[in-house]
């Protein structure tokens, strides 16, 4: 084999780089979902907790399009068959009052940056 040393060095460097995230994190604590603040004034959400946890972003996108473009403001819950108003600030934030203790907790931990609040006004957070 020609250039045996160069190839082996290259391979070694490649393997070290590829596995860097794994051995760098050895010993550090496993990911834990952050504790978010539970609403005080409501028992259940518009849908089940598991559904909201995985689908809230799609749901908010659908609400946005349905309200702005089709004028459909009522949401019929599949979980408790109540009718809610499709509104981030008036419905979601009515119970989840504190954006810092609810939205931001998970979003900051998993390093996502939704731009909802570039325009929508956090009803309680403006006093800061």
């Amino acid at each position, binding site marked *: 084999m020609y250039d045996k040393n160069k190839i082996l060095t290259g391979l070694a460097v490649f393997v070290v780089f590829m596995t860097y995230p794994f051995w760098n994190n050895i010993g550090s604590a496993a990911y834990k979902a952050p504790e978010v603040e539970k609403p005080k004034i409501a028992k259940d959400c518009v849908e089940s907790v598991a559904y909201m946890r995985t689908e809230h972003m799609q749901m908010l996108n659908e609400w*946005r399009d349905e309200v*702005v*473009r*089709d*004028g*459909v*403001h*009522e949401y019929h819950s599949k979980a408790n068959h109540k009718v809610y108003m499709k509104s981030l*600030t*008036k419905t979601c934030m009515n119970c989840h009052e504190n954006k810092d203790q609810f939205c931001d907790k998970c979003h900051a931990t998993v390093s996502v940056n939704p*731009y909802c609040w*570039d*325009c*929508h*006004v*956090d*009803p309680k957070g*403006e006093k800061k």
Partner: protein
Amino acid sequence: MNTMRRNFLKVAAVAALGWGVRPASKLFASGGAEPSEGVLFASRHTVHAGPNALKARRWAMVIDTTKLTKEVVEKVVQTCHAIHNVPSIPGNQNIKWIWETRMDHLFLEDFNEYQPADSAQTALALCNHCDNPPCVRVCPTKATFQREDGIVMMDFHRCIGCRYCMAGCPYGSRSFNFMDPRKHLAQTNADFPTRTKGVVEKCEFCAERLAEGKLPACVEVSEGAMVFGDLADPESEVRKLLAERFSIRRSPTLGTKPCVYYLV
């Protein structure tokens, strides 16, 4: 055998021709419920109306210029801009949804200088919610669209800030956010979003209030100087006013068919 192939090719050629013409015929015919739609008019967006919503076939506004006192104008502009989080930015990058303008600036086509001394010198300008809105036709993302009830809506989420609509609108009804508007807002109304840098905005005939069964905010505080109603309903207040008094619209020869009428 020969004749059969000949006939087959003829039929196939005619069919192909027909198929090729089909999309064009569709383009001319389709668009919506109204016959005036299709290729020459922008198609309209069906709107679901909730149980409490105010409904109309064609929303329109009538502004009585003789009743627009200084106080009314001030109150109208202030109320609208406060509830819709419209900032006041010094310089030429200001945002406006509704504003006061001289009559000869409003009516460019025929408004001579020899008006009665007691006639209105100024009036309010806002989005005309045209029947044939140029802004809707030029928007590349359909961020601005026309609802079935005539309201020309903005979907701020979808606006990419290309400003074609501002070039298309002959009334200057649209404003562009050159900077983050929040810095220039003394107070924010949490029930209505602010906008962000790079988005165009304008009056929406208070579509969010109509959905809750309320009249537009400007009409509510105008002390009767502004009237809002269904243009398709002969019994509506707007139709009665238009039947009684002489009314004009802004630049009607452009063919945009504005739906804000001014009583002079």
